[in-house]
């Protein structure tokens, strides 16, 4: 049954339905509805909610709960995410699963409390110290939250690695019809590493300190092999009107929703523009872009930032095609008509002779 619900509340409900039993969080706008929802709902569902004294404490409580075998989650926004990076680095090093939601707001510094996409680098490049990656999932609608959240818990458990859900203030705050009928709780994984007390088995230890640099290198290569496996197996993206496209807009999350509005207008004028929407920002849909580049010359990257994902598009295309960019940093969300005008101008310039590449 469909209900009208904000993205933040849907994130909370989807987490509980996915088997999250422990939530730790610190208030920060624009994600407070997640924390408040968990405070209301989780204890009655047999779980534990703690309002922590800081984002640093919250992520370390998640680490402890995960080491003890629970599905644990925390959520925050920009400034709070910066504080969580220490703990995320340890989660990766310790190979502990966790789900961390970032309802992104404009930065840097205190920034704004409006939705933005300016934490892309932080999320996709690891964010904390050391050589590592986290899986980064970007929902674009409240309904998609019901697919992304169970996927996040499943990937976290399967790969024993933290997963970031990179939402934004608009998705968090806006209400849309949503049903949870299709949400399947991820399976429980065997966790022979969990700390339960050394009863009838040898003592276990979980640590990231490895003084011997050769062993530390081995541990790093082990993590890197896992990251390569994730890159091979877990890329997800959506394509929209790309079959005949002469120009493809690349946008994610709420940016892709704005782009779809712009593309609707462009199509009404006969401009052959499509959309590639990465659902996993890491691993990035490199192959999908390269496949598109076989028939498409022009790629238009749109972000609610000054340009971060555009670097991944450049890296993926390796010089093929022309890359156009439009971004609005700081928390400004352009209307579809604004993006339509700009994409339209670039489209006309790119096809000024009226001919696309022979296909």
């Amino acid at each position, binding site marked *: 049954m469909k209900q009208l619900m904000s993205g933040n509340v849907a994130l909370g409900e989807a987490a509980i339905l996915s088997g999250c039993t422990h939530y730790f969080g610190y208030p920060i706008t624009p994600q407070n509805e997640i924390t408040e929802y968990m405070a209301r709902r989780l204890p009655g569902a047999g779980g534990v909610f703690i309002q922590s004294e800081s984002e640093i404490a*919250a992520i370390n409580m998640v*680490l*402890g709960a995960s080491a*003890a075998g*629970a599905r644990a989650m925390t959520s925050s926004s920009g400034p709070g995410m910066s504080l969580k990076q220490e703990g995320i680095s340890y989660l990766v090093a310790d190979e502990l699963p966790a789900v961390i939601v970032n309802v992104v707001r404009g930065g840097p510094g205190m920034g704004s409390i409006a939705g933005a996409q300016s934490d892309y680098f932080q999320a996709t490049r690891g964010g904390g110290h050391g050589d590592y990656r986290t899986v980064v999932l970007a929902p674009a609608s409240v309904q998609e939250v019901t697919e992304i959240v169970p996927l996040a818990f499943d990937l976290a458990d399967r790969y024993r690695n933290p997963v970031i859900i990179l939402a934004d203030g608009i998705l968090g705050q806006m209400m849309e019809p949503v049903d949870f009928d299709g949400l399947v709780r991820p399976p429980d994984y065997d966790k022979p590493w969990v700390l*339960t*007390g*050394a009863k009838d088995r040898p003592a276990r230890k979980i*640590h990231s300190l490895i003084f011997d640099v050769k062993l530390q290198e081995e541990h790093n290569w082990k993590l890197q092999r896992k990251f390569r496996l994730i890159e091979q197996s877990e890329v997800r993206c959506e394509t929209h009107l790309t079959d005949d496209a002469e120009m493809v807009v690349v946008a994610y999350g709420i940016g892709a929703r704005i782009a779809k509005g712009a593309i609707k207008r462009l199509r009404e004028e006969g401009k052959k523009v499509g959309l590639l929407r990465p659902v996993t920002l890491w691993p990035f849909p490199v192959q999908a872009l390269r496949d598109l580049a076989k028939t498409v010359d022009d790629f238009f990257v749109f972000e609610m930032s000054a340009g971060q994902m555009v670097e991944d598009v450049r890296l993926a295309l390796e010089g093929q095609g022309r890359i156009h960019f439009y971004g609005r940093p700081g928390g400004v969300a352009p209307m579809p008509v604004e993006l339509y005008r700009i994409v339209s101008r670039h489209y006309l310039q790119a096809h000024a002779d009226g001919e696309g590449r022979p296909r």
Partner: protein
Amino acid sequence: MTADQAATTVFARPRLLKQADFHYCPGCGHGIINRLLMEVIDEMDLQGDAICVAPAGCGMLLYNYFEIDVIESAHGRGAAVATGIKRVRPQNLVFSYQGDGDLAAIGTAEGIHAANRGENLTVIFVNNGVYGMTGGQMAPTTLLDQVTTTTPAGRDADLAGHPVRICEVFAQLDGTAYLERVAVNKPAAVTKAKKSIRKAFQCQLDGRGFSLVEILSPCPVNWKMGPIEACRWIDDAMLDYFPLGVFKDVTAC
């Protein structure tokens, strides 16, 4: 002694202390505290229940010595990690092992708020007045006028503030159940420290709430003293500022 007289063991390596060489410096108190913890856990038959949260600092390699489950924590985050574990496994004995930099500087917030929430866990707080592993810098517990590598002219209150008394501060929080300061600088003190650890663990098993044992511990290498001199210095200098005793005990009520 004749052959038919049975030999009686009066002291032995604790069963739960792994066959490994401590990395601690000669005269360091950590080895004594490690031994006491494993003795108490064995005597209370808690090997199958205990989960230890190790710190950053000299205590970070506890998992090489303890025959119980151990997890490392980032510097200062021990009480938060322990909170996460305990909230998943309330039936387990969960304790963090933290130094003075860990609990009284970088991890003050995590420690105070775990205590204030009355988390039913135990903090073993090793106070040796100095950052040991990094080479003898000033700790929050460094005494006034004490020379360290970052207070080369002695700790000056105008520049570097005053030593932090954790037990006295934590005693102000209603969430705390049992707080005691002990020392491991002489045999009678060690016996008392062991009793205090046992009491803190029992307090947790009885669900009474947050317990903390602060242990004054010698660090002769960073204090630039001989081991015996360091043990004496605890009595002569530290006890004035860090008096031993029970600061909170709700188990008596």
